[in-house]
């Protein structure tokens, strides 16, 4: 093998390695990063299912435990990353906790949960919604989802 051939082959090897590595890195890195970010900022479907199905089908105590632990997890997500979505999910969870408290004849706790729920909902029109209307709206959404 001549010196020139060695030079050409070595050049092909180095350029191939660098070009392949750079091309793949710059193609994959944003994709992996986005995937990681969506894992960090999207409330997982398994959590939504968990609190919703437990609320719907389990005993009030188990339902409350599921809602509270889900609220804790989603709040942690918001704390770690304020871009977490959907923003209204925590509002929904606290509204369901308020409905459970009403069923358990605990209006004070229900009001506290509703205050928490409101703090996670944004009302673009700025219109005041009464507690009863808010709970009725949440129940209506549940009924619509169930049928």
């Amino acid at each position, binding site marked *: 093998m001549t010196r020139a051939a060695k030079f050409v082959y070595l050049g092909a090897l180095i350029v191939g390695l660098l070009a392949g*590595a750079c091309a*793949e*890195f710059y193609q994959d890195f944003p994709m992996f990063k986005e995937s990681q970010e969506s894992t960090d900022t999207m409330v997982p479907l398994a959590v939504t299912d968990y609190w919703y199905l437990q609320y719907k*089908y389990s005993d009030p105590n188990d339902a409350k435990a599921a809602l509270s632990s889900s609220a804790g997890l989603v709040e942690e997500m918001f704390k770690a990353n304020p871009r977490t979505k959907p923003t209204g999910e925590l509002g929904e969870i606290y509204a369901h906790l308020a409905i459970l408290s009403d069923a358990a004849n605990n209006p004070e706790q229900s009001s506290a949960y509703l205050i928490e729920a409101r703090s996670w909902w944004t009302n673009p029109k700025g219109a005041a919604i009464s507690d009863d209307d808010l709970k009725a709206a949440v129940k209506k959404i549940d009924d619509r989802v169930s049928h």
Partner: protein
Amino acid sequence: MKKRGPIGVWFSVAIAIFAMSWWVGATAGKRLAVYWVRHEQKQQEAKYGPERVHLDAELDELFAVSFLRIFVVYDLESKTNSEKTLLGAVSDLQYLADHPNPADLKPVIDLELGIADVKAAAVEEQDNNRDLAESYMKSAQAIFQSLGWRDTSEENLKNMMNIEFDRFDAPLPAEGGTK
């Protein structure tokens, strides 16, 4: 007269070396990208402490569970493949439920496993595998009982599956996966 080198052979060999080293480089580049994303995640965890490590572990596990849900809810075009992926998902969910990481995710994973068991029972019943169907249904009933469900009768669980799967606009096994 001096003899000249075979340029064509040189060129072909150089192209082959280039292509192979591109492939090796691309593989390394992909691994580097994964490493770099994980490295950045570890930096975040180090910055925010053990709570962040716990949260990341929870989210990774929940992402895996949510991903397996796809194979439970949605039917593939081929019935055989559909059943294979469903039973694979049931087995993976069973593993995750047996080894929850972190442990406080156990009820969330159990719920998903229960849903998968109900679907597996429906599929096995359609295939006239009554023993298997019964075994999956019993497993589902035990899970939902442990989760405090008010009614864990077979009829209610099947009804729940129909309602909740419809929520995802997914085909139901009872309709032969053709909804």
